[in-house]
């Protein structure tokens, strides 16, 4: 890859396969470049392999030994298989479907957990700064600044999810992966998260899995449509929604299945 291409591409997926058992692939033969500082949406009906692909980016699938992968993924032209999972996951953060702040920790400790529990020594002032900046980034600072040392369980679902994004952002990753981050939230909280993601893309590259087509259309710069483990189509969201090239994409976008 030329330097310019590396600059534009943050994640490069090459001939990638994921399988849960030997005879069936959850993801098969995916080739795609994910662009830096843009939002990429992965769409598709349930079971199409979109989450499996997303979880391969930070090697979360390794938690389950029955899952095997084939092919390569490069982060900034470095094969992710050559990195330690610790390093990789600090560079590629992840936000989950339902808000999951650490229940035993205060809001402050939740945001700083990635540093504290990785044994990174910092002065208190440094930590304070990271917490304030991360919470500001997710527009949560003004709402929680007086209760930083309380546990986060009094927060609403949307606030909790923003706290989880703050926890990820605090690590200053290159990429943020989001696995249907708004499916457990009400429309107003969803809107807030979406606005937040748009502001975050100037600093981070974002990959979001969603089965909500409208969300993908509103939010993303690029879209990928997956069906039965196959990457059917990918490209600029605008193009894909106006003139899809594949019949299956068209049918999915028209609501004929999914």
């Amino acid at each position, binding site marked *: 890859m030329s330097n310019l291409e590396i600059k534009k591409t943050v994640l490069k997926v090459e001939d990638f396969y994921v399988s849960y058992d030997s005879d069936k692939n959850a993801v098969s033969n995916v080739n795609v470049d994910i662009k830096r500082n843009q939002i990429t949406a992965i769409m598709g009906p349930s079971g199409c392999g979109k989450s499996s692909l997303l979880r391969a980016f*930070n090697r*979360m699938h390794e*938690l389950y030994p029955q899952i095997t992968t084939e092919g390569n993924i490069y982060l900034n032209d470095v094969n992710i298989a050559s990195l330690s*999972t*610790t*390093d*990789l*996951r*600090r560079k590629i*953060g*992840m936000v*989950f*479907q*339902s808000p*999951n702040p*650490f*229940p*035993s*920790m205060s809001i402050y400790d939740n945001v700083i*957990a*990635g540093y504290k*529990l*990785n*044994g990174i020594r910092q002065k208190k002032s440094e930590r304070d700064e990271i917490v304030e900046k991360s919470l500001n980034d997710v527009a949560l600072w003004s709402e929680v600044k007086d209760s930083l040392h309380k546990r986060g369980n009094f927060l609403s679902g949307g606030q909790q999810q923003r706290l*989880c994004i703050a*926890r*990820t952002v605090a*690590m200053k990753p290159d990429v943020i992966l989001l696995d249907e981050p708004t499916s457990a939230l009400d429309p107003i909280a969803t809107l807030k998260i979406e606005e937040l993601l748009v502001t975050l893309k100037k600093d981070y590259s974002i990959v979001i899995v969603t089965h909500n087509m409208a969300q993908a259309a509103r939010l993303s710069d690029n879209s990928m449509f997956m069906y039965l483990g196959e990457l059917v189509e990918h490209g600029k969201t605008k193009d894909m929604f106006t003139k899809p090239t594949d019949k299956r994409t068209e049918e999915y976008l028209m609501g004929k299945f999914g």
Partner: protein
Amino acid sequence: MSKTLKLEILQATGNQKKRYIKNKIFQIFVVVFAIIATTPVFFILFELIKKGIKQINFDFFTKVAPDSFEAMMAVSSGKGIPGGILNGIGGTLIMVTVASIVAIPLGLLIGIFLYENGKSRYANIVRDVSDILQGAPSIVLGIISYIWIVKNVTHGFSALAGSMALAIMMLPLIIRSTEETFKMIPNSIKEAGLALGIPYHKILLKILIPTGLSGLLTGILLAISRVIGETAPLMLTALGNPTLSFNLNKPVDAVPLLIWQFYNDPNLVDLVWSSSLFLVFLVLVLNLISKRIISKRK
């Protein structure tokens, strides 16, 4: 149309009446049986308090058990039975402490192992063995501890042998409660930790254990309250000791052992009630504390 509709309503109300009556009868049954099931507890407490309270005084907690002759003389001269159960309280304390020191870390580790490797063959075997252990009669565990510790380690009845018997009893309770507690923590909490690049041992120590702390504590307290009243295994291991002793190599007494000894001595038999009251009260307090922890968690 209106006629058929009315008819339907009439029928419906007939059915509803029947349902209402059935419902009421069932409700009464449930309430009555609930009362029947809980009354023994109140009878036991009432009986113990009635017969035992007069023996409970300062001496009861600060003096060792009297010997038979002393007690006979005191009673014949019109005084109450002198002495108390300090040797039993001390022995129970030391044995439960040592049993906890052995069983809690081991139980937590095995419980964590089961949670992490829930479906592996080896984990299933461990789980089954732990269940079998939970069902093993306590006297059998006493005999095992007798053979292992009394015969081979301390060469005589000892607090250590009693502790081991109690520890073996506590182990399966702590293993299962640990596993269940960790299972209640959503998997996504663990994944969130891993997704931040946090090493696994830190996730366990700083995230999972603090999150499940109340559940773990409850399991431990219930295990303690379960073994605190055990008598049979202690007869074969701790034996009993009329003096207060904290020596692990020597025999000690325990509150339930004392109850058995008092029961067998016509001059001391009155102390059975106060000792039992004390023991029941202790278990009750432990249970109430764990209930409080559970309700706080919710």
